[in-house]
């Protein structure tokens, strides 16, 4: 069919709007299935969230939450320098992520409205309360790590942050999945696992980068376990999504996801092989930190792609109806 025929087809409102992005956006695998849409317009509204703010928030929140766990484990096993970097790292990460979150609100002065109510039905409400509960102990732990003052308060803060931190890392999976965005909601079973694994990768990476070699073992273990879990969760998630998995292979989402997986795998291998070498360990840490960030941005972008193209909304729903 020529472009003209396509254009004429579009007028009928049936099977229209397929794969005709101006500017030749990358569209590697074109699903053959026919579907109808309203002139190719999206059925749902893509999130209005800014990529850097919210992608960054997902990443830094995970880094913070998992670092708090690592800090507590390091502390309990007498690895004080690893505990110190993890405590400081988690606080810096959570502060920046908070700034990103507030920056993204259309009306930042109204952040406080989040704490008007508590709703289990709103992952964002749960998250706001989690963050409010997590911030202060995390800050106390970091304060004591930096200044050396109030060690008991610092330890209590570190332990409390370690208990709440995993919640901060995990809830973001539900935050994304509880939307009509196909690439997120279709992954609702796997996203929390993917996100805590990615958080473990980042926290392990930070430990490998910043802690001395003789204390880095927990970070190394956490990073490797996180990498394996993350790659498995991502594989399983895309395997269950059907056509929506295309969104994870398309355009920038595809590039980010592929790079993230390569970096994570390479980082994990380097973390194992380089266990006696400070430089290799640090390089592994950088790869893991970057890989984890790319994973989050990849998921974010895939969601945007899947929300902007009606095929990802219509076809899975049609299949669902047919199966009923």
């Amino acid at each position, binding site marked *: 069919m020529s472009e003209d025929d396509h254009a004429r087809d*579009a*007028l*009928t*409102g049936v099977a229209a709007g397929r794969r005709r992005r101006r500017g030749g956006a990358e569209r590697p695998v074109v699903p053959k299935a026919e579907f*109808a849409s*309203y*002139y190719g317009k999206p*059925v*749902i*509204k893509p999130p209005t969230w800014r990529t850097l703010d919210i992608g960054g928030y997902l990443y830094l929140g995970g880094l913070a939450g998992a670092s708090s*766990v*690592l800090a507590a*484990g390091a502390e*309990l*096993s*007498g*690895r004080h320098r690893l505990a110190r970097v993890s405590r400081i790292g988690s606080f810096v990460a959570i502060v920046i992520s908070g700034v990103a979150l507030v920056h993204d*609100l*259309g*009306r930042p002065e*109204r*952040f406080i*409205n*989040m704490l008007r*109510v508590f*709703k289990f*039905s*709103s*992952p*964002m409400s749960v998250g706001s309360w989690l963050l409010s509960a997590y911030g202060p102990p995390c800050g106390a732990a970091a304060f004591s790590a930096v200044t050396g003052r109030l060690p008991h308060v610092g330890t209590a803060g570190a332990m409390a942050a*370690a208990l709440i*931190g*995993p919640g901060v*890392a*995990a*809830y973001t*999976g*539900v935050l994304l*999945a*509880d*939307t*009509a965005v196909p690439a997120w*909601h279709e992954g*609702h079973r796997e996203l*929390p*696992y993917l*996100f805590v694994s990615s*958080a*473990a990768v980042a*926290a392990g990476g930070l430990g490998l980068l910043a802690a001395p070699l003789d204390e880095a*073992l*927990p970070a190394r273990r*956490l990073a490797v*376990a*996180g990498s394996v879990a993350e790659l498995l969760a991502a594989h399983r998630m895309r395997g269950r999504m059907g056509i929506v998995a295309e969104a994870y292979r398309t355009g920038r989402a595809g590039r980010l996801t592929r790079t993230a997986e390569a970096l994570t795998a390479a980082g994990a291998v380097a973390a194992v092989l380089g266990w006696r070498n400070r430089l290799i360990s640090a390089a592994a840490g950088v790869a893991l930190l970057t890989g984890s960030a790319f994973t989050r941005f990849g998921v974010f972008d895939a969601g945007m792609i899947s929300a902007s193209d009606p095929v990802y*909304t219509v076809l899975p*729903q*049609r299949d*669902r*109806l047919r199966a009923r």
Partner: protein
Amino acid sequence: MAQRMGFFTDTSVCIGCKACEVACKIWNNLPEDGLNLTGMSYDNTEKLDANTWRHVAFIEQRKPLAWQEPGVEHAGPVPPLSTPPDTAPMTPMTPGEPGDLRWLMSSDVCKHCTVAACLDVCPTGALFRTEFETVVVQADVCNGCGYCIPACPFGVLDQRKEDGRAWKCTLCYDRIGDGLEPACAKACPTDSIQYGPLDELRERADARVARLNDAGITDARLYLADTDNGIRGAGAFFLLLDDPEVYGLPPDPIATTLDLPAMWRHAVIAAAGLLSAGLIASVGRRP
């Protein structure tokens, strides 16, 4: 609580005049969208968004609705204005030989879902359910977090760039409380938009679809009239003449919050996994 009120939009009598769009804009004081020509059809509004709470879709199909008679050369006497549509020679409803073009027009609006994902996910409580079981945003509470926007399975809500807040149809909350019908329904010249108690509307819709089906218009079907869908029924439902996706509507919408218990379960397991992984990783004192 008052009776559940809603809209039945019968697209088979929509003439695409956009009186509803205009009335909605005027009553609700909505900012203009600019004069854009989309070039895709007579639809230059394109979609529902923060400043468009009624949107008339135009679909041009190479598919017959029914025989269409331009009526310039009436052999017999011109039928009186009171002629019912199914006997008049020149309404789209007249059964007959197929032509080769049909226009579908449909006025879309917020569905005021029984299980409304937008309302469930709103972290501030800005979205609430009224005594008429409609779903309304309180602008002074909304903090512009934007969560409701991708949560809606119909893409109804959107952000107003100027103030960052989310806006949508209120089912004219400020009119129906006073016993007035919503502005769009009031303005609709063909009664394509009908407002009333939901039970009554459903009965009327059942009768209407049965009549159309009997008349040979087998395409006619109700959309969201039942409660056996992923939003457990809607306060605004439709009579359509083609698949919902042709009108830009999702064929099987679900309120994703119905999956929340499962999602929270997974999140708790995942969090517990992270906590134990972090602690187990630290087992053994440093060398």
